[in-house]
């Protein structure tokens, strides 16, 4: 893979530097074990040491074997990958099916100037990654060249010298760091620290009470009142959460840039240790979704994701992310820029839903009450019903929030729908991207005169719902959004319901 311009249809090997990278990365995964063996197993060092050596040799050999048996080629029609010696694998992706070409480079890969190229077709074949093809790894320059070639931008870039330059839509603003602790990554951090600490203590076989510092602190806390201990613990958890969330934010979003490239591609680049480049063809874009989890919303922050076809459904989760957690105003601005639509469809004034929708949510919010009664009847531990009762105000507040979040509206080219208890989601879906309607009505909705209207689409999650809308409002919006699709099946007062058959 050292030739400057390889012939288009010849079989290529992965980058020879992979001979070093694969074993190194696997060794890094074993690092804790190796450390423990070396530190703790002092009594029996020889045996373990040779075992280690053997493992390292096996890893290096496996890496070499993988490198020698793996080949890829890019022809005019398809991208092909062959690998394996005993179990031969051939994977082939037609080029016109390629929807995404993403680059990822972890720390070890970057040290050696390599990148992993992931080619996706966005096909959901039995929920597997059948549509995926991954080159792990090629040199960073080759990865970039392949990305351009496969996204068919090479031709554009070379044909015209004066193609419009890449246009930057957004870049990282470090003041957004304030949103990091308001995201779930703070919980992830707490979990990770707790898990790692537990594992470390467990594997080292150290009893925490043996450590003098911990013991001293514990004795002091033992004599202190309970509330002090609880406060110290809470503050400790809070610090871990905030620091962890900031670290995760920095690692994920370092150097973030969202760029519109000349060939009609949106490209997100980000990452501190592990760098990522994610590309999205604009012609596959069907809209955007702004989500505001409760905490983030309290800080006037939000997230922005693209609704696009070919991202691979639930597997493509996160692939459509266009921005770090950012101020709501910024998400609207970027939404407008990405969709090339001003003002942003997500700022469309939304219509409230009928009071019956509020009643439905309040009934659901009151659910802890009967649960408490049931628990009390079944005579389980005495405190459990009280927990349910204590939850009641919270669930009722969430119910009101869920109602206030409900809304729908039509923009020039977009259907806008908002919902959510806690996490508020506002989706703007291209009306031309709607490929069908589903109207559903439960028994309770029927009594309340409400329906749930779902616009089905090939993009994103496949369907975007307008929950609990008044029947005629919902049907009118559907017919206005996509004229002529639902219309032939509607009746009004002038057209009494005709019962066929």
């Amino acid at each position: 893979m050292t030739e400057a311009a390889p012939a288009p249809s010849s079989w290529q090997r992965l980058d020879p530097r992979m001979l070093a990278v694969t074993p190194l990365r696997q060794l890094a995964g074993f690092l804790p074990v190796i450390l423990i063996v070396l530190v703790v197993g002092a009594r029996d060092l020889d045996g373990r040491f040779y075992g280690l050596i053997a493992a390292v040799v096996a890893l290096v050999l496996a890496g070499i074997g993988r490198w020698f048996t793996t080949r890829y080629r890019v022809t005019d029609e398809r991208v092909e990958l062959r690998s394996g010696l005993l179990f031969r694998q051939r994977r082939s992706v037609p080029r016109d099916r390629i929807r995404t070409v993403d680059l990822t480079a972890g720390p070890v890969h970057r040290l050696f100037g390599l990148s992993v190229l992931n080619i996706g077709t966005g096909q959901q074949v039995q929920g597997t990654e059948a549509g995926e093809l991954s080159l792990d790894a090629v040199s960073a320059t080759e990865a970039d060249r392949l990305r351009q070639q496969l996204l068919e931008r090479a031709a554009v870039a070379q044909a015209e010298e004066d193609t419009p330059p890449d246009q930057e839509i957004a870049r990282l603003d470090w003041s957004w760091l304030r949103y990091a602790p308001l995201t779930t990554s703070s919980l992830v951090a707490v979990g990770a620290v707790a898990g790692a600490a537990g594992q470390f203590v467990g594997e080292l076989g150290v009893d925490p009470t043996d450590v003098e510092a911990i013991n001293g602190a514990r004795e002091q806390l033992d004599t202190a009142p309970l509330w002090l201990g609880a406060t110290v613990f809470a503050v400790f958890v809070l610090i871990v959460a905030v620091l962890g969330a900031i670290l995760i934010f920095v690692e994920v979003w370092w150097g973030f840039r969202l760029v519109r490239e000349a060939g009609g591609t949106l490209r997100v680049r980000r990452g501190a240790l592990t760098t990522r480049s994610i590309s999205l063809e604009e012609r596959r874009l069907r809209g955007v979704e702004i989500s505001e989890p409760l905490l983030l919303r309290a800080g006037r922050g939000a997230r922005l994701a693209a609704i696009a076809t070919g991202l691979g459904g639930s597997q493509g989760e996160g692939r459509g992310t266009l921005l770090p957690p950012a101020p709501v105003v910024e998400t609207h601005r970027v939404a407008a820029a990405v969709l090339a639509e001003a003002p942003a469809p997500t700022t469309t004034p939304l219509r409230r839903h009928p009071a019956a929708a509020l009643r439905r949510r309040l009934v659901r919010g009151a659910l802890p009450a009967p649960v408490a009664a049931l628990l009390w009847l079944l005579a389980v531990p005495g405190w459990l019903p009280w927990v349910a009762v204590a939850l009641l105000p919270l669930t009722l507040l969430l119910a009101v929030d869920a109602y206030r979040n409900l809304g729908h509206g039509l923009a020039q080219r977009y259907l806008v729908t908002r919902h959510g208890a806690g996490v508020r989601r506002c989706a703007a879906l291209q009306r031309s991207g709607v490929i069908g309607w589903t109207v559903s009505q439960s028994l309770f909705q029927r009594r309340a005169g409400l329906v749930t209207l779902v616009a089905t689409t090939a993009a994103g999650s496949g369907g975007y719902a307008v929950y609990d809308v008044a029947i005629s409002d919902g049907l009118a919006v559907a017919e206005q959004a996509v004229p002529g699709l639902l219309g032939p099946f509607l009746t009004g007062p002038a057209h009494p319901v005709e019962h066929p058959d």
Partner: protein
Amino acid sequence: MIAGVIRHGGGMQSSETLQLRPPRHQVSRRAITWWTVRAVGSVVTVLIALGVALASWPFARIGLLWPILGTVLLLGVGYVVVMPQWRFRVHRWEVTEDAVYTSAGWLSQEWRVAPMSRIQTVDTERGPLQQLLGLSTVTVTTASVAGALQIAGLDHRLARDLVEQLTATTQATPGDAT
């Protein structure tokens, strides 16, 4: 003929009476038998599972076993009697030049529309029971993971003709249906 009904100027004033009309065709009457047999099957399964679970649980001792089983049996009988008839009244379908339109459900109901130009595949499925009764289930999929339409309990000859008709129409439509 309907176009005149939907008159919403700039704003969207609600016209109180806009409604979905039922699709034109009913499914086969034999579908009632099909749903009944399936309902009996699931009720019996639930009763047996519940009976075993409750008998090996303290409920049996408090004497709650028979009251609970009795209630479930009563509900089950109601389900077997009511559900198939109700479903038969709700399950309907219609194919126009431009779209496929279906309705389904009983307590909860659902209406689905997919334009002809967005249909990707048309499949039929016949379980052993359906084969016995000469029924078919036709599934019409679009590019949306949430958008498949199902017509369950069609007469199998009718289903075959319908599939042919839909396949021919959708093949004549260009584009990748996204």
